[in-house]
């Protein structure tokens, strides 16, 4: 019986998230546009995440390089190190690390912020003040996350490659020019494009899940905590699913 209940809850939740998301396309993109709030959100969301995404990407680039070297050395292709690392970073590590950090930092903060606004009736107060809370709070945040994550990913990729460059230089001296020449020689448009396209979906998922969890927060401080926490968990899981779908798509379209 408990299992049936669980399944029903799961389907209920899936249905209501779908409806909440559908609202974005039917209502969220119509006027009046909350441009000021959108810009404020873009600034705060992008700015808040950049240091952390930069740091983690830098470390990942460095560590990845150091870990790969022994294997490549074994097969005598150490010179391919920049190529390998470049592809790994641009296609997978960069986007996924950025998205997961984004989920941890932004989904939770949106979930907590909107959750506490919900339980203290600030969202109701907005509604009686002639403001559609979905447009003002949800549409702006979702657009901001969707637009900011690709930018953050590109910046993160660049920082990660610098980490990789330092990793390469620990054992052998390579000039920055040569390193990047090698990286970009092997990288093609079809490596970069799908990787960036998927980050739009990652960003959308992070914003949407954060807002959904916040808007459906249950009363009390515990409710706000639960919202923030489940926003991170759910958006992280969704990021991996999108990643899985994305790799299937690129396969089908022969971009691999």
């Amino acid at each position, binding site marked *: 019986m408990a299992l049936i209940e669980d399944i029903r809850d799961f389907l209920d939740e899936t249905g209501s998230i779908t409806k909440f998301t559908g609202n974005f396309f039917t209502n969220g993109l*119509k*006027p*009046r546009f909350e441009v000021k709030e959108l810009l404020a959100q873009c600034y705060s969301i992008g700015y808040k995440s950049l240091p952390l995404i930069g740091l983690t990407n830098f470390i990942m680039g460095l560590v990845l390089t150091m870990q790969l070297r022994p294997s490549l050395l074994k097969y005598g292709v150490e010179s391919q190190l920049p190529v390998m690392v470049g592809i790994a970073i641009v296609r997978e590590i960069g986007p996924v690390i950025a998205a997961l950090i984004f989920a941890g930092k932004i989904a939770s903060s949106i979930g907590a*912020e909107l959750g*506490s*606004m919900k339980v*203290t*009736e*600030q969202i*109701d*107060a*907005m*509604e*009686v*003040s*002639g*403001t*559609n809370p979905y447009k003002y709070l949800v549409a702006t945040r979702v657009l901001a996350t969707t637009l900011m994550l690709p930018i953050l990913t590109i910046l993160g990729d660049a920082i990660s490659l610098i980490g990789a460059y330092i990793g390469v230089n620990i054992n052998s001296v390579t000039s920055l020019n040569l390193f990047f020449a090698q990286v970009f020689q092997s990288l093609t448009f079809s490596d970069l494009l799908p990787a960036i396209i998927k980050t739009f979906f990652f960003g959308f998922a992070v914003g949407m899940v954060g807002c959904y969890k916040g808007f459906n927060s249950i009363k009390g401080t515990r409710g706000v905590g639960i919202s923030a926490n489940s926003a991170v968990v759910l958006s992280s899981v969704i990021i991996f699913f999108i990643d899985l779908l994305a790799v299937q798509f690129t396969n089908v379209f022969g971009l691999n």
Partner: protein
Amino acid sequence: MENSTQTEPKANKIIPKGEPVIIIEHLYKSFGKNVVLKDFNLTVKAEENVVVLGKSGAGKSVLIKCIIGLLKPDKGKILVFGNNIPELSADELDKVRTKIGFLFQANALYDSMTVRENLEFPLRRHWIGLKQKEIDKMVLEALDNVGLKNTVDMLPVELSGGMLKRIALARTLILKPEIILYDEPTTGLDPVTAREIDNLILKLQKKYHTSSIVISHDMNCVKSIADRVVLLLDGVCYTEGTYDELAQSKDEKINQFFES
């Protein structure tokens, strides 16, 4: 464009004293199996203060949230200035809402905004095209009304409970509403501050000729404010009358509110 039809507050057509401004007929509202309102009726006349009494969980907040359109009733009519609230479109509802002030039970001030931004929010949203000068003037006037001009650049977290209540009241009044719905304006305040709030409500009502529904458990507040008292019990309007009529009632269900 949605929400932006109004540019300036239109000169309000004054409704003569004694004419009904809110008419609630056969209102039903339940949440799942929890039946909150069943066949509730109430009429509020212009320039009248109606106090709604009722136990915790009786559905008082639900009632006024239905009036402002935050909750959709299952059945029934809610006429505010002749507009049936549950049937209005979002735009029409926004227009009616400019004439209704709503004081939330827990204030619902935006905690990420300063007092000034809190007060500006309804102004900027409802009346697009106001000049900054006019906005500043109205904000200061509203704060002056509640005696808190000096808090204008503070954040809600920096203020005490009573001050928050008064700021929330100022935000409610800034659009000069014709109807004000107060959800427990004095609960959780010390008796002195509570009396101050009562006096403020009365003073503002005299000044702006508003009609109001006040939810309260505070019998001092009820006594000083109420023109008429309504008892919400088991989802219906159990009885109504003046404070004195109800206070002298022999009915135990009414009596329990007036003891102590």
